[in-house]
């Protein structure tokens, strides 16, 4: 859009705005004074109180007197007003929550600031040290506003639909028009429209109803409460679903690696971000294996234990009455119990759980000769590693996967671990999210896309969007220009 001038006629101006804002579910056009004055605004961005009190009420009192824009300005009891003839500026301001007044016959716009400050809650599940201290609330319009505030882009689309014959839940589908992939949009739309169900209460229930493989333990759509993370994801072509009454947004399509990313990775410097992300991925992958490896080594493969470990391992195991398999299962079970109890308890009592757990497990179990202290360390390490998951549900998946792994290791040793790993890998390879491979870019191998999808690199490296879920707009900025460093005097 160049600096095209505004049309003078009200009708033309309204059509222009409606055409330039694609699929915006909440552009409101009011005409007053017998179609001589148009009031345009984006509903979710405008503070309705201000709108009524300071804009619509004075205008209605004016009732039909023909007037000029300066006179209108006099009339409105608001501080921030702006006159402009530039059409694209009008669009920008509309998306920032300003109200656009158009007098028929004047090729000029009066913009009035009446934007709403969206409410936000504190992030409870996905905390970030650096970055937005904001999370979605349970109000759909408010959540849409939160995203719009981060991306006031004319091509940010927002479609509304209603799901559930009884619950009639309002669902908002948001995406960036020229970045999201048309095919994905159609798939998702179709799935939502074909859903016949009496009630959908929360977004996580919805995501389970419309995913590709409902039998798997792995979720194929990501739930997040962070608007900034959603904004990052939308820039990569993902689609967001928001539900009225849910503070979790659903992102699709997703790869396995998306579940290991946080907004923090983007907010820290790229090399630190890559380190943290690498640490997290490593921790989560090893968390499923670590106890199983202990069980396998102690049950079958005493050969692989290093000399320096033998002494301490044997001594710690001497008083334990069970074979390693039962010992490990018992301890994992206790850890899960602790976690579950901690999650169920109110936070004030939850503190005591930690103490009880620490004493019961750490001290008493070893003293009583119930478990070996090395295993306690490993199980705690595994639990710790699973808690690095930025996504609570994904952490859960990792913890559940350990049990079959441990049982396989206890039955067949390293062979069992290899079998379990192979099955897991096969399962992941067959999975898809909105029809896109779940392990992309590892499989199918797209080395070129690693830097956008898996690693966290310096700015020039992600100048182009990855091939995953690609839309029309393939580049984010010019890589060549990003590499230039210009001094101020050039």
């Amino acid at each position: 859009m160049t600096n095209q001038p505004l049309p003078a006629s009200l009708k033309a101006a309204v059509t222009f705005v409606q055409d330039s804002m694609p699929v915006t579910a909440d552009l409101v056009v009011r005409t007053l004074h017998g179609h001589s004055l148009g009031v345009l605004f984006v509903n979710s961005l405008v503070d309705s109180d201000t709108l009524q009190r300071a804009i619509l009420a004075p205008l209605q009192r004016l009732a039909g007197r023909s007037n000029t824009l300066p006179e209108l300005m006099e009339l409105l009891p608001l501080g921030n007003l702006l006159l402009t003839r530039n059409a694209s500026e009008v669009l920008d301001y509309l998306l920032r929550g300003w109200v656009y007044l158009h007098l028929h016959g004047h090729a000029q716009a009066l913009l009035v600031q009446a934007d709403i400050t969206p409410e936000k809650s504190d992030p409870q599940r996905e905390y970030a040290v650096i970055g937005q201290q904001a999370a979605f609330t349970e109000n759909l319009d408010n959540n849409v506003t939160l995203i719009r505030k981060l991306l006031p882009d004319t091509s940010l689309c927002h479609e509304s639909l209603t799901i559930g014959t009884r619950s009639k839940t309002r669902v908002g589908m948001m995406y960036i028009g020229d970045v999201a992939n048309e095919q994905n949009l159609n798939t998702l739309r179709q799935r939502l429209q074909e859903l016949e169900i009496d009630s959908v209460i929360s977004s996580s229930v919805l995501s389970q109803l419309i995913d590709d493989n409902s039998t798997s333990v792995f979720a194929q759509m990501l739930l997040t409460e962070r608007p900034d993370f959603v904004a990052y994801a939308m820039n990569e072509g993902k689609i967001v679903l928001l539900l009225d009454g849910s503070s979790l947004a659903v992102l699709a399509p997703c790869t396995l690696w998306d579940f290991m990313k946080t907004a923090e990775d983007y907010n820290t410097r790229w090399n630190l971000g890559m380190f943290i992300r690498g640490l997290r991925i490593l921790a989560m992958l090893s968390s499923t294996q670590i106890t199983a490896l202990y069980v396998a080594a102690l049950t079958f493969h005493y050969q692989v234990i290093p000399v320096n470990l033998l002494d301490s391992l044997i001594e710690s195991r001497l008083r334990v009455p069970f074979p390693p398999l039962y010992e490990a299962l018992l301890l994992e079970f206790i850890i899960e119990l602790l976690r579950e109890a901690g999650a169920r308890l109110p936070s004030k009592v939850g503190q005591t759980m930690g103490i009880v757990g620490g004493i019961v497990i750490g001290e008493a179990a070893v003293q009583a000769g119930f478990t070996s202290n090395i295993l306690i360390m490993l199980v705690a390490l595994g639990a710790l590693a699973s808690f690095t998951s930025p996504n609570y549900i994904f952490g859960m998946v990792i913890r559940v996967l350990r049990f079959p792994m441990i049982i396989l290791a206890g039955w067949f040793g390293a062979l069992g671990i290899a079998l379990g790993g192979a099955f897991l890998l096969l399962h992941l390879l067959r999975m898809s999210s909105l029809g896109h491979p779940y392990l992309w870019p590892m499989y199918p191998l797209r080395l070129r896309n690693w830097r956008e999808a898996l690693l966290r690199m310096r700015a020039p490296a992600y100048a182009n969007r990855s091939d995953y879920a690609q839309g029309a707009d393939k580049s984010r900025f010019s890589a060549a220009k990003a590499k230039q460093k210009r001094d101020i005097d050039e």
Partner: protein
Amino acid sequence: MKSRHFLSLTLALSLLTTGCMRTNILEQTGLIVMVGYDEAGDGKIRGTSLLYQVDPHAKEKTQVIASVASSSKGSRDVNNLGMAKKMVSGQLRVALYSDELARKSGMLELADTLSRDANVGRMLYVAVCKGKAMDLMSFRYPETANLGTFLYQDIKQNTHEGIIPSSTLHEFIRDSYEHGRDPVVPIIEKQEKKITISGIALFQDDRMVGETPAHNGFYIKAFRDSSRPSYLEVKMKNAPLRPLFRTTPKKEETTVVFATLNQKGEIKLTDPANLKFQISLHVRAEMLEISEQVDLSKPDTEAKIADALSQQMTQELQQLLTHLQTLKSDPIGLGEIYRSTVRHSNLNRDKWHTMLAKAHLTPKVDVTLVRSGVVE
């Protein structure tokens, strides 16, 4: 869909009906850390095993058990009868052979048995001991709680950072079968209440035919193993160094100790018809110590010391090679060089050992000293 059901059913059944694999739960096994073999007359062998003692209340960290049988595995089975736990060999680190056994009947049979055992790692160290292995193993050394682990670490650090040529089971087997190379293993000796590596055993095929002091391990190692930093102490006559001394020397000989940065042995067959070998060794080192006062501030002092060292070491290498030729033992792999340069040589081990005695070996060591300490 049907095939999928069938597949999952088969998998589930295969898990439940395959029975159990044989487990070796760590604390229910007797881990053998070290074995020793002696001659026991009548073609029999006395096998001694040293095991981890896993009872924390026991006085000793290890348990030694010995028996006589016709084979090594047989002796282990006899030993097993007197054990509370099943003896397993997966943690075996050191195998000792008495020098008597090594000289008389050779070690290959016993070593081969070990290497065929899937549980035994091929990186265990093979060593020869002076006297009976059983006596050496059943003695309680005041400094070491676990002789097996101690010896393993002793040999390991001396092969990794010292002057002892590497002698893992894998290398021993390889050198015994390869045409044109003989194994070499360290000699372990009990001295009073201490145990130490006292020298290096030289082999012809798998039989021990002689020994050489540990000092000479440096030369053998330089031609056998990949170059790692090491150290050496060289004693030499005062004469060539006399102009460098600040004071009159107190002793007959001057001792120089240096740490090498790298040493590279190179063997060239210069004349295949007359079996002439050029054996050169390049050493880059930093001097650590010299027993006499020398003026290191002069620019050519280091070069002169290096020259004297080169001469002395060439002599030592010459003596070692002559010794090897008289024993008809070839630990540095001259035969391999011959076999790879001369076509259709049809070399076999016996043929090479007779040829070796007739070979002309010209050694040359050149030492470069790069540093002589922090204060220049």
